[in-house]
């Protein structure tokens, strides 16, 4: 795309071959004696200690799940427990060198990583900083439980805090790290650099890339480690994360200190199984995960396999990889070989592997081997190690007792405060900018060519005589969106935007035209055509504290980022107990004219998912005001735009679209035309067809229609619509979504309930047919047309004199279509 990069056909067509460098496998061969310069005796003992904490923690949970008790303390834990006993050296080795500001992301099997990274952070934090974190976290709620009657050091207190906070979270206690809303598979604690663990396999594969992007773009210290499993290497979103992370532009196009790779390590914890599927030999073909690096970029992602049964081998790899990250040579792929002793979950009978195999790995157990080695090297004695283990056991029993005590570790009191979870679904904050720096831009806003061009446009569509200005001269809907976005780019230094063809081209529908001139690459760039990575990285970016506008070029591509939109984006604010904010404004363009896979209105799909705000403005005034609100907020917003109306001028707001900043609150519908005989409520660009219908009704049938534009789907305030229905007694709800299961029906149901006594006929839904979207030339048979409204009124609401219907809205036809499923 960029003109500076010339694709020379002579070079491109020249014969040559792709060569690969050898990928190291288990090359670490140092003895403890050889590592003495790198580790003090205390360091080595601490490595042992940290591994034992994980082993004992997982053993405790395993015993609770399988025998109902641990050390004589009975407890029933009905929730999940995906344990990592056997993988301790991999976790501790990964976390050992990481600083507090290095972030890790994990999987469903990440208890070990939480503990390892937490213990590492506690070790590196000063006592004062550690104490401050503990005291301020949820106003000291977690700390208060573990510090009662405790007399030890701050670091010892920190370890109790870590174990208790994690355990209480697993047991869904309000005193857990995420108020019990995350649980075993999602627990995390950002002050220690532990970012969300993810119960969707490979879920962290693209989110962590977004976190690395945040660190890079905002010049934040530290790197990001994505702890994902060997089986996740088959997942599309993981590949998309790899592709996004290895884009050439970081080195080729980004300028100044921004030049260089993303600070991210894909740390693949290869425990050899994806649930029961054996990745080497059965379900995958890579043999060794590290091989994948060779296919991703010329650096081969600096991939290697290290022996995750030896903590020092893993630490050694991290020492080398960290240097590469500092040299901006990311992304890095690290395969850490390990093995899990327990099943996938306690219900797993391990029918897919032999007892001999488990015993063979246990015979080389990482903790036992490492303990044996440091005793042999006289770093410590077996007695000391035994007493460490006994001490950890003691703490576990104590923390278990605390975490299952309903008085000190209560669950959320849903009876007392029934809306408590509801209050966490959105953060609903109003924040000008997510950071205080001066925003990086290329020139003052008033010098921007697009800003200048827009300033000459007519901000209301009609002149004083009511004649429309020519389309080119009207301030268009795309200008309204641009206005709000460019304004925020000059306000919020963290704001970035990306998607397909966003830079240079200015977006496929020219919304971003002019932005390329205004912004450096690190604030506006083109992504690969991979929607999962576009949204997944945006989630990671926002989670770390940035504001971001990812773009999905066609609504129909939403399926390509299904997990990101349905499972990740909406969930993390509430699942973090409101620790995280998610200021992601996801622009989604709804097509037409382009057939079955480029013309669908899928607003209903996202409106169905709790945790997303959904708006669909179709006038320049509404687009600018709602985009301003979206960018001022801290919640994920799915911002729908219609390709039918990017060029439409403002026809309703008579004083024209204001030049200054203004917000339109989410959830408020807008009356575009007043009337008294029937209400028409629309979602999206259907508004204009409804207005055409209103004109026909007025001229031919002497019926005055009130036309209301929903503007928002989530949230939605019904009051104005109900007031209108009380006046008219009749309502049609219309939009371009295929009508079965659409949000139109949700509106109809609520209106029926809320205005039942005022209704003169059932609310009628006029949506698209439950077909594929046909070719443009046949669209009139598919999308609601003005005459459909008249037909629906005639057949379902009030017969109109002399009207002959073309569309069949009869009850029998409704039943027939439902029977056939069309």
């Amino acid at each position, binding site marked *: 795309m960029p003109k500076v990069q010339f694709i020379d056909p002579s070079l491109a067509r020249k014969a040559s071959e792709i060569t690969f460098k050898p990928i190291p496998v288990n090359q670490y061969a140092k003895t403890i004696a050889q590592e003495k310069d790198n580790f003090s005796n205390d360091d080595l003992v601490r490595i042992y200690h940290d591994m034992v904490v994980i082993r004992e923690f997982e053993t405790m949970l395993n015993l609770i799940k399988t025998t109902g008790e641990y050390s004589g303390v009975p407890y029933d834990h009905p929730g999940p427990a995906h344990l990592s006993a056997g993988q301790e050296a991999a976790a501790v080795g990964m976390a050992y060198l990481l600083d507090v500001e290095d972030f890790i992301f994990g999987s469903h099997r990440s208890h070990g990583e939480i503990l390892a990274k937490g213990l590492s952070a506690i070790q590196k934090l000063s006592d004062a900083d550690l104490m401050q974190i503990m005291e301020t976290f949820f106003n000291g709620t977690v700390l208060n439980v573990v510090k009662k009657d405790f007399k030890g050091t701050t670091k010892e207190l920190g370890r109790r805090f870590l174990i208790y906070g994690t355990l209480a979270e697993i047991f869904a206690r309000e005193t857990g790290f995420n108020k019990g809303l995350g649980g075993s598979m999602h627990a995390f604690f950002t002050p220690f650099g532990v970012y969300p663990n993810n119960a969707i396999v490979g879920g962290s594969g693209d989110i962590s890339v977004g976190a690395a992007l945040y660190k890079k773009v905002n010049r934040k210290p530290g790197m990001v480690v994505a702890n994902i499993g060997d089986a996740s290497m088959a997942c599309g979103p993981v590949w998309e994360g790899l592709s996004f992370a290895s884009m050439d532009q970081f080195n080729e196009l980004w300028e100044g200190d921004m030049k260089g790779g993303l600070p991210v390590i894909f740390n693949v914890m290869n425990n050899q199984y994806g649930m029961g599927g054996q990745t080497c030999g059965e379900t995958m073909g890579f043999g060794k995960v590290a091989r994948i690096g060779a296919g991703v970029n010329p650096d081969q992602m600096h991939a290697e396999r290290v022996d995750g049964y030896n903590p020092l081998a893993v630490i050694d790899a991290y020492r080398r990889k960290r240097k590469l990250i500092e040299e901006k040579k990311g992304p890095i792929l690290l395969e850490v070989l390990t093995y899990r002793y327990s099943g996938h979950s306690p219900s797993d009978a391990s029918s897919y592997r032999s007892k001999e195999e488990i015993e063979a790995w246990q015979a080389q157990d990482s903790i036992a081997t490492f303990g044996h080695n440091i005793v042999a090297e006289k770093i410590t004695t077996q007695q000391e190690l035994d007493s460490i283990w006994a001490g950890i056991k003691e703490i576990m029993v104590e923390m278990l007792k605390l975490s299952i005590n309903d008085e000190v570790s209560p669950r959320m009191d849903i009876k007392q405060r029934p809306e408590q979870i509801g209050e966490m679904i959105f953060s609903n904050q109003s924040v000008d900018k997510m950071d205080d720096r001066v925003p990086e831009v290329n020139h003052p806003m008033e010098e921007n060519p697009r800003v200048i061009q827009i300033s000459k446009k007519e901000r209301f569509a009609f002149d004083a005589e009511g004649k*429309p200005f020519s389309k080119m001269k009207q301030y268009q809907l795309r200008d309204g969106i641009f206005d709000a976005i460019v304004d925020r780019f000059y306000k919020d230094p963290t704001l970035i935007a990306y998607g397909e063809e966003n830079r240079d081209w200015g977006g496929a529908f020219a919304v971003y*035209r002019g932005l390329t001139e205004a912004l450096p690459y690190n604030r506006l760039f083109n992504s690969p055509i991979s929607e999962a990575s576009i949204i997944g990285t945006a989630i990671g970016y926002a989670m770390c504290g940035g504001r971001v506008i990812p773009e999905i070029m066609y609504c129909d591509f939403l399926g390509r980022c299904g997990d990101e939109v349905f499972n990740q984006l909406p969930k993390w604010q509430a699942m973090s107990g409101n620790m995280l904010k998610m200021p992601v404004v996801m622009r989604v363009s709804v097509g037409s004219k382009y057939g079955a896979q480029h013309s669908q209105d899928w607003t209903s799909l996202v409106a169905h998912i709790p945790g997303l705000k959904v708006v669909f403005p179709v006038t320049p005034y509404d687009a600018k005001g709602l985009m301003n609100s979206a960018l001022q907020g801290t919640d994920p917003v799915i911002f729908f735009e219609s390709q039918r109306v990017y060029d439409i001028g403002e026809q309703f707001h008579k004083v024209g679209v204001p030049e200054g900043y203004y917000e339109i609150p989410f959830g408020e519908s807008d009356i575009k035309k007043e009337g008294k005989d029937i209400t028409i409520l629309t979602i999206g660009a259907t508004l204009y067809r409804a207005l055409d219908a209103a004109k026909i009704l007025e001229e031919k049938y002497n019926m005055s229609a009130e036309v209301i534009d929903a503007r928002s789907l989530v949230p939605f305030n019904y009051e104005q619509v109900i007031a209108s229905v009380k006046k008219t*007694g009749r309502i049609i709800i219309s939009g371009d979504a295929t009508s079965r299961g659409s949000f139109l029906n949700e509106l109809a149901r609520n209106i029926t309930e809320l205005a039942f006594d005022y*209704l003169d*006929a059932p609310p009628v839904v006029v949506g698209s047919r439950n077909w594929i979207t046909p070719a443009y030339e046949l669209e009139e048979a598919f999308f609601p047309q003005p005459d459909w409204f008249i037909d629906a009124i005639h057949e379902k609401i*009030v*017969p109109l004199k002399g009207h002959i219907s073309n569309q069949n809205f009869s009850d029998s036809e409704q039943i027939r279509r439902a029977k056939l499923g069309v």
Partner: protein
Amino acid sequence: MAVVVIMPKQGQSVESCIITEWNKNKGDQVKKGEILFAYETDKASFEEEASADGVLLAVFYNTGDEVPVLTNVCVIGEPGESTDAFAPSGSSSVKTEAPEVTATSTKEEVPAEIVATESSNSSSSEAVSPRARILADEEGINLNSVRGSGPNGRIIEQDIQAILAKQPKSTPLAKKKAGQEHLQGSTIGSGLGGSITSKDLTQQNQVSGTDFEIKKLSNIRKLIAKAMHQSLQNSAQLTHHLGADARRMLEWRRKIKKATDGGYPVNITINDMVCYSVIKALKQYPQVNAHFLGDSVKYFNNISLGIAVDTDRGLMVPAIRNAGNLTIQELSNNMRDIAAACRKGAIDPELLSSEAASFTVSNLGNYGVEMFTPVINLPQVGILGVNTIVPRPKDLGDGAYGFVPYIGLSLTYDHQALDGGEATRFLKQIATEIENLDFEL
């Protein structure tokens, strides 16, 4: 040969472009590949290159002009060539007309006509929209009388509004009060323009609240109710009223009183005397002593006189059979016995059938009733109501007027069977019989 340069069509939806800059002026030499002008759509900027060498002979649009796509913009050629043929009609000098927007004229408010679909005509649906139901309730309109004009015959708001439009308007207070207290307005109110005010409201249902009990009808009540209702529904009843001089009857009554005091066995009452007179009149008017059977009339040879008897259990009308053959003494005794049997509940049910009597007398005179309209026991063709005796002024001759006791007679007859003249003559005959009453003690 002159080469014309047109505004290219940059994309399917582009209708026009704006020229942002001219790099060449009219008269300039241009070379193939040199940029002539820059232009933009609402999405992007472009540059137009010269497609031939030559002189820029004509420029039809200036910087800032909006040019419809595929329109001629300029001409390149040899000096001296004419370019007139290429000048577009809508170039800078000629303004393109923006499409006209019809101003919406203010229309007179005319209520939409109510239209019924075919289905609503044929359907017997009883569906009512919630809105229509509540409006009807508020305005006190009975939905049974409303014909629905909505889909499938559903009664919708406009049907109620149509009825309301025909009724006088109510004041807001009257509406509110009517709704709250279940009152209804008269057809014409006392307010402005005949609107119904709160004062015009009457009780829709006086029996309200919880202070009542519901009792099942007794069988006799059911029979009476059915008979009376059917009578009024299935015949053409009307009533004539007439008075008879009662002096002679009262004289007889005094004589009888005296005689009974002296041991005479039969206490002949005024009612007995009236019935005796009725029997006599009936003999002269057989068309009244009959049953009307719709397409035929049944005339009776004898007289079977029904007499209305008030009992605890309700009204009973037993028949006196063969009344035409009875002396007044026999009639009196018969009537007394039969009334007693009714009150005791010992009456032969055969005699109670409305078909058992050929004519009926109902006497309310004892209660002081001065005039009433008795209801015929179908299929009989008439019934006589006997009223109380009241003094009335009468011309006594020679310009002298005096008060004379008159007994009121109210004859209800079925106009299907009798005409007014016959009925009147029959009634007059009863009066004559009363006024000339004679019998032997």
